[in-house]
């Protein structure tokens, strides 16, 4: 290996192999990938991955699902952005999912996710996600991998500190990143009146134990600061929630400078059980607001969007024992609670250390009123009284921490481009590994629960630079997989992701895979425009509205010849997939449609609205290769001028040419 320096001029491939081979010998610091990495991530064809990895899509607005350790992309679930591939946001049934108090919003920025838990362990039922721009929380059903529900958050802007859950999924929280004037106040005020008019807001969204149905139980009215991230207490600290906040300077401009003035910002500790008591005792104020609640019904295969006009608000300045501020150095970002619930880790973006707070000490300090004063009416606990200890010189720019369940934590360092493993008890650093480059979030399967399953850590980087073949100015987004089963963290794979990955969740595949739905039962389909067989298909005209009840089955549509559509008509194609078989979706597309395709699962009905723009012949076809005769699965619809006397006709297999005039009009 002493010749290794002369290898630098060789091709990257040869270099990588030599480094790989060399790693069988004792490692030196330059060896990023060791020789057994390939076999650790290789999942043979036909074998399943061991873990599901749900990765936020950032500005794609969607959630992606990977198998680990292979990093094979299994699915992209449309959540907050339209997806023409799946008809999401284009079908009549899915459009209400993207409705908001502002109207139909076709895009958002999905940052964080949390899997539902029972007793602090992942139960595999749902995964929640936040919309960071127009504040919303979504619930995805993990039997269908379909967005089941979206609720909008009033009194908020930039729902960043979300959607973190309590240990029995009693609540999903939504903490506002931007403080703003409350919705029922006049927002038309001077921006530099921030300190007077702008308020922070934390929403507690209740989750129905049986159905998952979400409702805003209450909101906490808080001082105007930026809420960043959060995690619930667990075990001994169940009943509390911890939120990082920055911009306690209350700057309204050039936050880059003006929100970095103070030596310490805060972690806000919230006693949500106390808040529940106040709510029950009638201490909340009913405020009039406007937000939407969108629910997808799997029996009607349709979403509904309802306007909500009230929210219960608890004033944390008045109700003094709900919230406490803990000083935390330098604009804390990540706010993570260890599996025992005793240790709360704050990661100041600009800090040169990681403070670890003790829940027991915090409780003692609160009981003893060991406060250094208050901030906008909220008591501020003395830093040293809540502090367990500090990790000294851990790296530069700590952002997020996950836990391995063996007494250790792993933290990402954006500025020094590394992950660092440290022991929670003695606060000593155990290992560090470079990442490529500048990591943001990280994820250990169950790494924010009471029971981590710490075989891997996946790191989601912010900068990719030279890691992949270049693709112009915009490069692949990058995740990196490390084996953490041994003492040393071992980089074993790079893989690209969709959008920009922020937080992610991972769980053993067995928790989810056996509950996966294979198809929807046709007999349970209560869509108002379903056709449960070809005998029920029809075309119904009512003035200018035409409803086409059409079915798809291998390998034809019924009807597949339709005449009598006229200019000015509003045509609704209600396509029912009659299949009752696994993995046989049908697609539906029509020439010139200004919308998208439909992708209809077996047993499902989906509707495409179509307003033809000129008379003529419009072919339609199945877009999802369904059988050997998929290419035969097509039809024609004839559009005549307004006022024409073309009769309304529809059929399949019957519209034969007259025997004496084949090929003529």
């Amino acid at each position: 290996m002493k010749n290794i320096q002369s290898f630098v001029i060789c091709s990257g491939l040869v270099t990588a192999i030599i480094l790989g081979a060399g790693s069988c010998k004792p490692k030196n610091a330059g060896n990023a990938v060791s020789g057994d990495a390939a076999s650790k991530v290789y999942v043979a064809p036909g074998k399943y991955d061991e873990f599901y990895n749900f990765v936020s899509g950032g500005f794609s607005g969607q959630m992606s699902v990977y198998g680990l350790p292979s990093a094979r992309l299994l699915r992209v679930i449309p959540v907050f952005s339209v997806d023409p591939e799946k008809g999401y946001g284009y079908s009549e049934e899915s459009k209400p999912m993207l409705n908001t108090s502002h109207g139909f919003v076709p895009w958002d920025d999905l940052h964080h996710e949390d899997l539902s838990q029972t007793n602090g362990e992942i139960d595999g039922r749902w995964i929640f996600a936040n919309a960071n721009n127009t504040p919303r929380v979504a619930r995805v059903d993990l039997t269908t991998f379909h967005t089941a529900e979206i609720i909008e958050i009033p009194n908020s802007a930039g729902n960043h500190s979300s959607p973190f859950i309590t240990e029995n999924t009693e609540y999903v929280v939504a903490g506002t990143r931007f403080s703003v004037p409350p919705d029922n106040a006049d927002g038309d005020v001077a921006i530099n009146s921030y300190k007077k008019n702008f308020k922070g807001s934390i929403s507690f969204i209740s989750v129905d134990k049986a159905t998952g149905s979400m409702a805003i139980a209450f909101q906490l009215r808080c001082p105007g600061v930026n809420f960043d991230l959060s995690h619930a207490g667990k075990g001994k600290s169940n009943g509390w929630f911890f939120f990082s906040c920055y911009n306690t300077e209350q700057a309204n401009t050039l936050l880059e400078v003006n929100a970095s003035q103070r030596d310490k910002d805060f972690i806000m500790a919230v006693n949500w059980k106390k808040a529940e008591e106040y709510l029950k005792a009638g201490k909340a104020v009913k405020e009039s607001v406007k937000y939407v609640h969108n629910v997808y019904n799997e029996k009607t295969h349709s979403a509904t969007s309802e306007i909500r006009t009230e929210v219960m608000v608890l004033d944390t300045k008045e109700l003094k024992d709900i919230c406490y501020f803990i000083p935390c150095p330098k604009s804390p970002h990540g706010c993570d609670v260890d599996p025992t619930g005793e240790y709360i880790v704050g990661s100041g973006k600009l800090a040169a250390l990681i403070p670890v707070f003790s829940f027991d000490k915090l409780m003692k300090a609160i009981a003893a009123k060991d406060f250094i004063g208050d901030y906008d009416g909220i008591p501020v606990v003395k830093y040293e009284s809540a502090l367990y200890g500090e990790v000294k010189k851990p790296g530069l720019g700590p952002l997020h921490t996950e836990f391995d369940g063996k007494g250790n934590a792993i933290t990402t360092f954006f500025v020094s481009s590394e992950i660092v493993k440290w022991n929670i008890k003695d606060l000593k650093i155990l290992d560090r590994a470079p990442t490529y480059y500048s990591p943001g979030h990280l994820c250990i399967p169950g790494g924010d629960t009471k029971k981590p399953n710490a075989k891997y850590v996946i790191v989601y980087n912010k900068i990719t630079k030279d890691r992949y073949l270049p693709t112009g100015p915009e490069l692949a987004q990058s995740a990196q997989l490390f084996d953490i089963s041994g003492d040393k963290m071992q980089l074993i794979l790079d893989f690209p992701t969709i959008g920009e990955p922020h937080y992610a969740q991972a769980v053993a595949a067995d928790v989810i895979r056996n509950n996966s739905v294979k198809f929807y039962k046709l007999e349970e389909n209560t869509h108002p425009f379903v056709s449960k067989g070809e005998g029920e298909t029809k075309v119904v005209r009512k003035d200018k509205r035409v409803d086409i009840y059409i079915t798809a089955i291998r390998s034809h549509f019924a009807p597949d010849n339709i005449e009598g559509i006229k200019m000015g008509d509003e045509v609704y194609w209600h396509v029912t997939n009659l299949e009752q078989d696994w993995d046989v979706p049908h697609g539906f597309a029509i020439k010139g449609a200004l919308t998208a395709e439909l992708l209809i699962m077996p047993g499902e009905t989906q509707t495409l609205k179509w307003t033809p723009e000129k008379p003529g012949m419009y072919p339609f076809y199945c877009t999802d290769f369904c059988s050997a005769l998929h290419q035969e699965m097509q039809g024609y619809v004839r559009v005549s001028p307004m006022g024409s006397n073309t009769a309304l006709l529809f059929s399949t297999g019957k519209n034969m040419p007259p025997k004496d005039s084949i090929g003529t009009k």
Partner: protein
Amino acid sequence: MLININDFNMKRYKILLAVLVLGTMTACNSTDGKLTGTGAAAPAAGGQENVKDDVSAKDVVKVAAGSKDHTTLVAALKQADLITSLSNAGPFTVFAPTNAAFDKLPAGTVDGLMKADQKEALQNILQYHVTVAAMKAETFTDGQVLGMVNGDNVTISIKNGKVILNNSAVIIASVAASNGIVHIIDAVLLPPAKK
């Protein structure tokens, strides 16, 4: 081992790669050169007939296999290696002779076809019972000619409301399947003799 980039040629490069790769495998994996990898719970090997799925509608193979009147047909499909193909997406129309229909053949015919050296002949006969398209009984018309999977044709006639194939086999019942339809017939269709 030192690579000099100047006298580097493709052949040496490949040999070197092979040596290095093998070296890496054997040295680090100790699994006689095989990249074993990881991964859990492999699905069953083989074709789609092995997919574990107790909830979907039955395909044409499962429909036939579920009938006690079609044990000869199912055994023949297995012998002819047609189970995998017929478990596929289709769409298929399968004319399924009953056990009684096979019994009408001259004695020893079925046993003869089930011999290993007669596999091609058996495949030819069975493929003469399948067409690619899901055709319901009511869509057949008198005089209609169907192109079968083996390349030969079957002619349909309609008499007294009955659908008859090649003037010899009558459709006595029809069963919808997920990947097509099974028409039960009372006689075996024999493909025309090859020229």
